């Protein structure tokens, strides 16, 4: 292998060698100094983001003093400002700030604490109040569950008012207007709790302003939910009462089932602002977890729970539902 001088002599012979190795080392040192002065905080940040290990220790050993120096001198921020045009930040509008969330016109009222069920929060449970008056209402679906609840609660001193309106529906105000009826019920009885089960006779077109909306798209569901929400607003009596709204179990007839699906979805949406006071009791996991069924096991025994029409619950079914509802009531009230 030839000597180094002999290799470098090629350049010397041509007069091409301009710099020495020392000059190269000096250039690297100058670049390192410039880097430390202008990007010291970046080295420190990079080290802080690395996983623990010798590499991180080494980078931080340089990055920390370099960062300190960068913090003290204006060079790092000057460099950042000078090159900011290469990756500009998105311009943010002050009007979109969270500070303005309450006044921003989103078209939707702000969320209030009433939207949260205490059971979902790490709050201590509210003190249970005694249940004096229970109103059980709705269409024919509320029967004979209303009798079962009366049978369970009346002996314990609870006044149970049964007010079914057979053949009625939230979407058929020509028979009875549930907006008016719910207000009348509250005025007359002032119930502490209300159990509602309605939805067997729905599917009529809904009048919204001058428009008539046919069942069962999103527009109809929204209009139906608005009516149900109006009822809930009345029943909750400013937050003093508790409401137990039971969904419609799947029906045998697919056409009715399609309507019931929309009705149930609407109820969940309607109840959202007042989950502190409104308990939506979903009857489907109880009676129709995997589609319609006329019978199910109760206490280990196969029992028919639906009426022959494939819509209503029969007595054993209603009894089972009443027991479930009572369990929910017991979480909110003292009974007896």
């Amino acid at each position: 292998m030839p000597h180094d001088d002999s290799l470098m002599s090629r350049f010397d012979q041509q007069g091409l060698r301009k710099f020495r190795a020392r000059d190269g080392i000096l250039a690297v040192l100058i670049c390192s100094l410039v880097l430390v002065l202008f990007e010291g905080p970046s080295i420190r940040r990079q080290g802080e983001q690395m996983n623990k290990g010798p590499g991180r220790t080494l980078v931080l050993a340089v990055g920390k003093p370099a960062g300190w120096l960068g913090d003290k001198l204006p060079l790092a921020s000057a460099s950042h400002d000078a090159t900011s045009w290469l990756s500009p930040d998105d311009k943010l509008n002050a009007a979109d700030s969270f500070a303005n969330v309450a006044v921003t016109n989103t078209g939707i009222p702000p969320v209030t604490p009433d939207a949260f069920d205490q059971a979902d929060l790490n709050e201590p449970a509210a003190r249970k109040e005694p249940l004096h008056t229970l109103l059980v209402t709705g269409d024919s679906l509320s029967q004979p569950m209303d009798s079962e609840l009366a049978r369970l609660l009346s002996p314990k001193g609870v006044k149970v008012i049964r007010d079914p309106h057979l053949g009625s529906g939230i979407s058929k105000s020509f028979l009875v207007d549930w907006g008016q009826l719910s207000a009348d019920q509250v005025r007359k009885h002032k119930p502490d709790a209300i159990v509602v089960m309605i939805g067997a006779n729905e599917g009529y077109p809904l009048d919204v302003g001058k428009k008539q909306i046919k069942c069962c798209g999103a527009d109809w569901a929204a209009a139906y939910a608005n009516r149900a929400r109006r009822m809930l607003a009345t029943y909750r009596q400013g937050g003093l009462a508790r409401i137990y709204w039971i969904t419609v179990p799947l029906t045998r007839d697919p056409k009715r089932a399609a309507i019931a699906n929309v009705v149930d979805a609407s109820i969940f949406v309607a109840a959202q602002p007042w989950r502190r006071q409104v308990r939506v009791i979903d009857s489907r996991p109880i009676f129709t977890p995997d589609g319609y069924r006329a019978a199910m096991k109760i206490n280990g025994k196969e029992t028919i729970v639906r009426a022959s029409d494939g819509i209503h619950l029969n007595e054993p079914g209603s009894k089972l539902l009443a027991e479930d509802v009572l369990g929910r009531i017991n979480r909110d009230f003292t009974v007896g």
Partner: protein
Amino acid sequence: MLRPFLIATALSLVVLFSGAAAASAAGCSSLPRYPGSGYFTSLKVSGVSCSTGKKVMLAHYRCRTKHGKTGRCSSVSGYRCSEKRRSIETEIDATVTCKRGSKKVIYSYQQDT
């Protein structure tokens, strides 16, 4: 002179109010069980008793459902009947008015289809 005038006025008022009462239909509180899948939702009678009204109502039900769940019936038990329906795919809601001279039975029902 004044006395006959007062008596005539009082008698006129009695006749007037009784006529108005007869013309306006009275509601019946208890309704019979619907024989099919559905409900009778109201019954009003004028010039007949509630008991007669219920008989007409049931007779009209039997007459119209002879032709199926969506059947109609224009006369029953000497009454001429007209019907105003609101229907969707799953049910019919209707108000039926049956007349026989000055006698009137008005009832409404909800029939699952």
